[in-house]
């Protein structure tokens, strides 16, 4: 098990390197410069902008910027006043040492800025994934039980429709129906709650969660129900099910012991993959419902050209995704004893 974990971690290193390189190159290609958005007013001193540029290392060639960003610049002198000589040591410690830099707009460490948005995103995605999987598995099971009958057909329709419906439009329609026309649920305002109470109060947040979680979960239900249905139908066709029936086992026992256990193995690994999407699965839904999560942070950062925040978010969500894949492999080994890790 440990050797397996180590091997998987080692495999992740080139991928992570590629991700950092790719997101850095994309960042460099971005038009617009964070300094210009800060020093937009003409009354500001252009010299100060130059100094700031040098302090942030934005005057360096791309490769140097990448190295500084990766391993920090506290081992080298920075030329702040532009006379060609180093003046002070750099202060950055680099991503590899847990320093994702400062947000240019918010002037706070990126990790801190991202960290305070993650709970809101998890508050949306964890219940959605749990609910989505639960409902999806139940519907998939019912469909398989009623194979080629009405419920089965209905499930297939639901899954195609659920896949084809754009989540942002579904969200808007729910807002239109339940907030505007029926006036039952708040259409947004989650941000107020997170700011007003320092602590988190489930009862207060629940009304705000209903619509976004429904939209998010529906997407998951349509995938999981279809998958569950196929898996169960495949398990039902296996020889061991016929054998179990032949030896006189009751239908219920066949289902519980043979069919479900085998059909759920791939679904558990699918769940592992979903864990990887915990941080990044809800960007558009967050936007529709003005949910104060990581997705909105990224969209805001994009419009403000806040490079460090964008790169930090991309890297962290990518790491989460890779972790999800690893967890998925581990789960596979746990639920299926035939797999040796």
């Amino acid at each position, binding site marked *: 098990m440990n050797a397996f974990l180590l091997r998987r971690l080692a495999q992740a290193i080139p991928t992570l390197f590629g991700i950092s390189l790719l997101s850095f190159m994309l960042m460099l290609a971005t038009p617009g410069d964070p300094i210009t958005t800060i020093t937009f007013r003409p009354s500001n001193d252009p010299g100060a902008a130059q100094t700031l540029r040098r302090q942030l290392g934005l005057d360096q060639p791309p490769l140097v910027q990448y190295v500084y960003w990766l391993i920090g610049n506290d081992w080298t002198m920075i030329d702040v006043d532009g006379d060609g000589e180093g003046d002070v040591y750099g202060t950055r410690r680099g991503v590899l040492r847990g320093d994702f830099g400062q947000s240019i707009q918010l002037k706070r460490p990126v990790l801190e800025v991202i960290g305070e948005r993650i709970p809101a995103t998890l508050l949306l995605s964890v219940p959605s994934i749990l609910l989505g999987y639960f409902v999806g598995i139940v519907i998939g099971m019912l469909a398989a039980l009623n194979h080629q009958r009405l419920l089965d057909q209905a499930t297939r329709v639901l899954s195609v429709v659920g896949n084809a419906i754009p989540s942002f439009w579904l969200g808007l*329609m729910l807002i239109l129906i339940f907030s505007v026309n029926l006036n039952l649920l708040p259409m947004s305002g989650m941000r107020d709650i997170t700011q007003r109470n320092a602590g988190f109060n489930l009862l207060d947040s629940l009304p705000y969660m209903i619509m976004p979680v429904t939209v998010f979960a529906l997407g998951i239900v349509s995938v999981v129900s279809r998958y569950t249905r196929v898996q169960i139908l495949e398990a039902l066709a296996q020889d061991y099910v016929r054998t179990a029936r032949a030896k006189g086992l009751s239908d219920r026992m066949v289902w519980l012991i043979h069919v479900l256990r085998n059909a759920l193995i791939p679904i558990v690994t699918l769940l592992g993959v979903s864990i990887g999407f915990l941080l990044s699965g809800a960007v558009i839904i967050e936007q529709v419902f003005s949910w104060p999560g990581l997705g909105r942070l990224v969209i805001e950062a994009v419009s403000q050209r806040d490079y460090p925040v964008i790169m930090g978010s991309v890297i962290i969500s990518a790491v989460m995704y890779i972790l999800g894949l690893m967890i998925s492999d581990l789960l596979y080994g746990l639920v299926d004893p035939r797999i040796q890790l």
Partner: protein
Amino acid sequence: MNPHIQLCCGERFSELELLTHVDEVKHMTASVGSSGEAVSKSKVVRLEAAQSRSLWAEALLHIRRDRLTLLAIFMLVMLTLACVFLPPLIEQALGVSATRTNVADRYRPPGFGNYILGTDNLGRDQFTRLLYGGRVSLGVAYGASVMSITIGVVVGMLAGYYRGLIDDLVNWFITTLSSIPTIFLLILVSVIFSPTPEVLIILLGLLGWITTCRLVRGEVLGLKERDFVVAAHSLGAPTHRIMLQHILPNVISLVIVTLTIDAGSLILIESGLSFLGLGVRPPTPSWGNMLTDARTYLATGQHLIIWPGIMIFATVLCFFLVGDGLRDAFDPRKVRSAK
């Protein structure tokens, strides 16, 4: 003498394969000997070989019986034609405009005057705007899906056929690219390029080939070991001939299905990006960016929220239904059971 292989190869059955095929039948008939059962088996096999239709004929036959898929194809064709030809005609006939702003006629409900689906916040006719938006959304979907499929097939075939260094590099690239959540990647890229619809096609095409590539690579890995490829190889057929004549025809059905599903997903992706304000930018209408300001229409113009979404939903649904239908039609197992 495997009907499965035969169906997979379809019309493109090369001469060589036909030869080995006939040989096999002869061989079987010759080796039958005294066993009556074997004789009848070989007869059945020969009959099947004589009667079997090509993959394409089978698929066509299947589709013609599949009313839902036919309906979806019909809808898509009509929608595409409508988006391409109708808007200028309607503008002329009804005297409305998709671009001219008209403050007096803001937020008109559907059916008001000549406005079939009402007007938007600037007094532009929504119906023609939807059709113009369809040009963009469908154009991006068609263009980007064709482009990503082409890249995916070429890279997938090369990686699957040559293995080695190319395969490793492609794998590393795919793993890296697919480890960045798609939505973040798209946000990054569209911020950088502030895309026009044409650039958006290229970007989505360049980012979308991974799934196809994986599928094709997997198929090619299997096909490479199959007898007809090995035989062609040992007869000295050049690589490009093996790739184009023997391998490509066998992945083409997979490619067509993926293409259809891809086009649907691309409409969802494009409209999502445009909704976020990162895809197609106003004043060019697209179904997604018509919804960007939807929250401000909640009180005044609910028809402005409902219709663009219905267009997206209906189109994507049609693409997915066609994709599902084609998958069934190309599935050799399904074809046999339908006989």
